[in-house]
């Protein structure tokens, strides 16, 4: 696995390498290198299986993280390729030519995060949401609880209680010290 990453290093610059497990690596690369890296890994290093392609919303530093999870059947290693794209003009190059099922994930990301993939087939069709008029729901600023309370009818009688107080009073009455476990970080 190290050789693969070294060989990759010679081609493009890798910003960070995380060895999460023996069979799971994460590398972070620049946005513009993505297509080259993916096709290189697929064709030369036969990372032929695209497990998934997903996005993570880091709203604080105004970025979307795209993760392309590849798998190599020979050395049996997962390699996650992370790309950070700008959150305002969220657009990414489409890889539907490399994998025939990539368009599904891209259509889902377009719908759930509003990330556009120009040229990807059916990318503008609705995947799960039908007649959705709000902002894409998976963005961090979308508050699902507020939307649900605004749109759907709540049945009265649903009560909730503060778990810390509840545990102290009801569950751990016999062991008062046990509620202090791991509370230093409060």
């Amino acid at each position, binding site marked *: 696995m190290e050789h693969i990453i070294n060989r990759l290093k010679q081609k493009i610059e890798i910003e960070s390498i995380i060895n999460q497990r023996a069979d799971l690596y994460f590398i972070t690369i620049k946005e513009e290198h993505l297509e080259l890296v993916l096709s290189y890994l697929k064709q030369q290093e036969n990372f032929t299986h695209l*497990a998934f392609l*997903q996005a993570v919303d880091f709203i604080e530093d105004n970025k979307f993280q795209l993760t392309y999870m590849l798998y190599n059947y020979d050395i049996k290693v997962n390699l996650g390729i992370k790309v950070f794209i700008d959150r305002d003009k969220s657009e990414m190059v489409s890889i539907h030519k490399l994998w025939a*099922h990539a368009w599904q994930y891209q259509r889902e990301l377009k719908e759930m995060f509003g990330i556009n993939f120009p040229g990807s087939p059916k990318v503008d069709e609705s*995947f*799960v949401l039908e007649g959705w008029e709000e902002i894409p729901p998976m963005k961090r600023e979308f508050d699902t609880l507020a939307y649900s309370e605004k749109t759907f009818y709540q049945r009265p009688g649903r009560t909730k209680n503060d778990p810390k107080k509840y545990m102290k009073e009801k569950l751990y009455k016999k062991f008062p010290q046990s509620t202090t476990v791991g509370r230093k970080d409060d």
Partner: protein
Amino acid sequence: MTKQSKSKYNNFKVDRSKFPEMENGKPVIDLDSHKYTKLWQGPQHPGVTGNMAIELTINGDEIVQAKTHVGYLHRGFEKLLERRKYIQGFTIVCRICVPEPDTNEYLYSAAVEELAGIEIPKKAKWIRTLNLEMSRLASFLMWLGGQAGSLGMGVIGQWTVGMRDFWLDLFEEMTGGRIYHMYMIPGGVRKDLPEGFVERAKELIVETRKLLFDIEKALFNNAIFKSRLKGLGIIPPEMVDEYGIVGANARASGKEYDVRMNNPYLKYPELDMKMITSTGGDAFARAEVRYQEIHQTLDLISQILDKLPREGEIQAKIPNVVNWKIPTGETYVKAESTRGEHGFYVVSDGTKYPRRVFNRGASYTHAISVFEKLAINRSISDTAALLVSLQTCPPEIER
């Protein structure tokens, strides 16, 4: 693959290149030409698996275009998990896939443990392995009934679902729940096995083997069953990587990919099992592979029951779950469900709430890209059988 397509079971020997008129690889379908009919199967249709819809364009009895519509079961799990603490999350992840919830539970707990750096005790690992295999068995039995039922042979479904019910009873003894168990909490399992569980499980294994013997005689030696499934939905080996096909669908096309053996987890390295593959690539090969995997699963369960340690801890020590902060990091854990590689991708940002939890449903591509490709030029009588033979599970597609 070419052998099957030429075999006498393939019922489209005539040249279908005329229908529909192809234009650079895409069919040109003009609905006003009165040559084609738009046909919906589902969501209210007994043939589709669960709550999904297939939009078919047919020419006579033949499908010229298929389009899968999902989203009828969308609950927005990934959004809900962003609002829930780690311990709250584990109670709802099992709802992601209804026939086989334990895989989701295990993967979520495993991801949280890996990020928090918790090593769970030995016995908990064994119990988890047992639970996973039992849920695989229950799901497989349901699938077997569905495959026969999609061809109008209800009796097999009646038998297998009835047998699955007894396995659900064992689940109830073990976890307290019939369908949703919420058993593998982060750090171990909730309860120890009850008294006499092992003996009852062993008796049930014998019963299940008897039933499978009957089913083999009634179903797999049935000429009509063979003639319907042979040559149906052939997946050529080169298509496996192209479409990200996993699990039994890939193994039936000769791809040796089983997460339990490629990337072993829990106690699978200590169990002896061998990869079950076939080269047919059609629906009958898939059925046979799954049928052998049922036997393999029964065998694994009996091995686990023998090696299961009687004594030992079942819970690792975890901090107070009310405000359990997981250190920053991200991981991807995967396990072999009945439908293939089932994965969880969890990103933590050091707070009490996960930043992102993504569930890679095993049949995510099977139901959409693969089905839309395989359904072309088949008769509309075959859609149900094809969907079931790909073993699609809608709730894990749309989450």
